[in-house]
């Protein structure tokens, strides 16, 4: 997995004094305000006090969901995916680590059907809602994000990763990955559905109402360097893979 996912979430959460919400959450009594970012000095708070609830949308084989569940700061992870096939793989993999079962729940569901399947998920909401490499496969991204919003706790973060629609991304993810190298099945990516960073950012900033509901989005461009793994490259969010994180401010659902 790309370990920068957790670094990015950590950066987002520590960027805002409200990140772990002393005021706006309903069960704030057991939560202390966060301190600065590094794991070292926040340890006491991070590892002993704040326990976060995660919702992972489009969890696939559970790579991120498992890692989130392993974090000592996590109280629970609900991981959903509409495909029963990948969930079976995710479940059998989770069996190999006994620390996961108390925290990690897989559910075969889309975001649209989640309120029906798990009404309490809308009520309790989540500190971190993640959808990694999902939005580029979605037909109506704006509608999708409208649905997602209701699961983010006020003060909580929606964290996404996706790919910008550029010649570079067409070359690497469509031409190289699918046609030449064949490391992903043909037709996995529809380049036309890729969303540029300014477009995604635009969704959260387009109206006055949205700007009251969401904080300022934060982006981080990342590049996969063969032999070294994923590296943050400032500015690369305009070219290829990037993270975007946005904090929910409003207490009332839109």
């Amino acid at each position: 997995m790309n370990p920068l996912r957790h670094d990015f979430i950590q950066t987002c959460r520590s960027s805002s004094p409200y990140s772990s919400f002393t005021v706006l959450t309903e069960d704030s009594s057991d939560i202390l305000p966060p301190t600065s970012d590094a794991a070292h000095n926040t340890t006491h708070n991070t590892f002993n006090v704040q326990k976060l609830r995660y919702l992972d949308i489009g969890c696939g084989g559970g790579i991120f969901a498992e890692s989130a569940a392993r974090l000592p700061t996590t109280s629970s992870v609900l991981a959903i995916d509409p495909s029963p096939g990948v969930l079976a793989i995710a479940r059998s993999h989770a069996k190999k680590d006994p620390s996961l079962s108390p925290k990690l729940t897989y559910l075969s569901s889309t975001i649209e059907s989640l309120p029906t399947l798990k009404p309490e998920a809308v009520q309790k909401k989540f500190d971190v809602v993640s959808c990694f490499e999902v939005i580029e496969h979605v037909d109506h991204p704006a509608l999708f994000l409208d649905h997602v919003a209701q699961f983010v706790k006020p003060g909580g973060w929606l964290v996404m990763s996706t790919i910008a629609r550029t010649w570079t991304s067409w070359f690497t993810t469509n031409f190289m990955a699918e046609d030449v190298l064949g490391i992903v099945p043909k037709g996995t990516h529809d380049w036309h559905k890729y969303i540029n960073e300014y477009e995604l950012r635009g969704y959260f900033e387009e109206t006055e109402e949205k700007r009251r509901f969401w904080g300022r989005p934060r982006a981080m461009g990342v590049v996969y360097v063969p032999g070294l793994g994923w590296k943050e490259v400032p500015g690369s969010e305009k070219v290829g893979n990037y993270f975007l994180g946005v904090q929910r401010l409003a207490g009332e659902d839109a």
Partner: protein
Amino acid sequence: MEAVVRRKAAAYVCRSCTRQFQRQLRRNYSNSAPRPDIYDVVCVGGGPAGLSLLTALRANPVTSHLRVALVEAQDLSKVKSWKLPPNKYSNRCSSLTPTSALFLDQIGAWEHLDQTRVQPYHEMQVWDGVTDARIEFDWAPGSAPVEGTTIAYMNENLNLTSGLLKRLEQLGGVSVFEGAKVENITFGEETEDLDLSQWPVVHISGGKQLTARLLVGADGANSPVRAFAGIDAKGWDYDRHGVVATLEMEGEGWGGEHTKIAYQRFLPTGPVAMLPMPGNIATLVWSTTPENASLLKRLPPKDFVAMVNAAFRLSTVDLAFMHTQGADQDDEYSWRLQHTPFNSRAVPQTVVGVQEGTVASFPLKMRHADTYIGERVALVGDAAHTIHPLAGQGLNQGQGDVQSLAKTIEFAVTHGQDIGSIMSLESYVSERYTANHVLLGVVDKLHKLYSAESGPLVPLRSLGLNAVNALGPLKSFFMKQAAGSGTKIF
């Protein structure tokens, strides 16, 4: 001991058979199986490497929530309460580089060492026994690293392990199984809702079983953990023994109490080193042939002392002759010394005595494991590599391993990775393997280079040594590398 280990190792070889057998057992007794006792880290071996690792994990708030266990065959309470009179020293000493000392300080262990028994040294005198080519590692004015002029610290191994145990006791939270032998290592079971078939289970004497997310082999050169993981270790025996002894000197050394000097002379049979301990004590490490070693161990104290003094002063021919004498080396030495010109300030002060029962020897070898990691397994210290002691790097390599592995585990914890998975452990092996391999190779070649008594290598090596000695910046580079304070080149 070796036979036992080999027999056990054989039991690990056919893992598929073991699994098959377990599967049968499971079928029959699956309902009666006790709940597995699962630890995040099970460390086999309570030597300096294993104890430092556990201390580092416990001292770091990021990793202190991990459930950790230590399995050690020895009785650790004896090690913890280890104490010798102030003028008596153990014969098993190691040099700790400033880098190792800093790490031990960071994990809060350094202050638990008895500081009155730790001796920093500031200079090294190294010379060729055949040609007398010499290199003096003393800091030229202005070339010393900022943190001080200490090249390394001499310290008794027991002072280190005892200090680490005290620090661990202060930190708490380690399940210690001492006086416990590892009887077997198998894999866990697979049940309906839990699959531990890739998790190592350590069976210790008394019937206890510990299931490990990460099994750490800090269990020495004949590591049962390494055998379990099916990791081979390659290398060779040097056909040399390291003779150690605690020596009493005529004084505190030529530099006095504040500038202590380490001496090493390369003899054709191997290097002989004398390293300063507090006061007028020094520790000897003499690599020599097994025959010479057994003679040295047999000699009465006065003749042993004569041999040590001879080793730093007489010609290699004289010295070789004295090894053929059955007795009376003392007289022989006094006579030959009168006919040997040497600069007494360039060799260690005269040895006047040897502490009783401290003359011992151990075989020297070079080993390097093919890798340090497997699925849910990591090797540190001697389980991963064994080095010739001529550069005093063995223990420091182990501390370097531990520092790296602890950092790797910390990264895995903060990123939600399984600390036992190969993927999480990869950065440990990539950080340490090449660095250790280069050091093992350099030390091995040094040993071989100085084993030659004649031939083209002899003038060349002397030329090289003299040249390095004359070139100030190069010498200071080597010194900083030795002290672990220079730019990391490996």
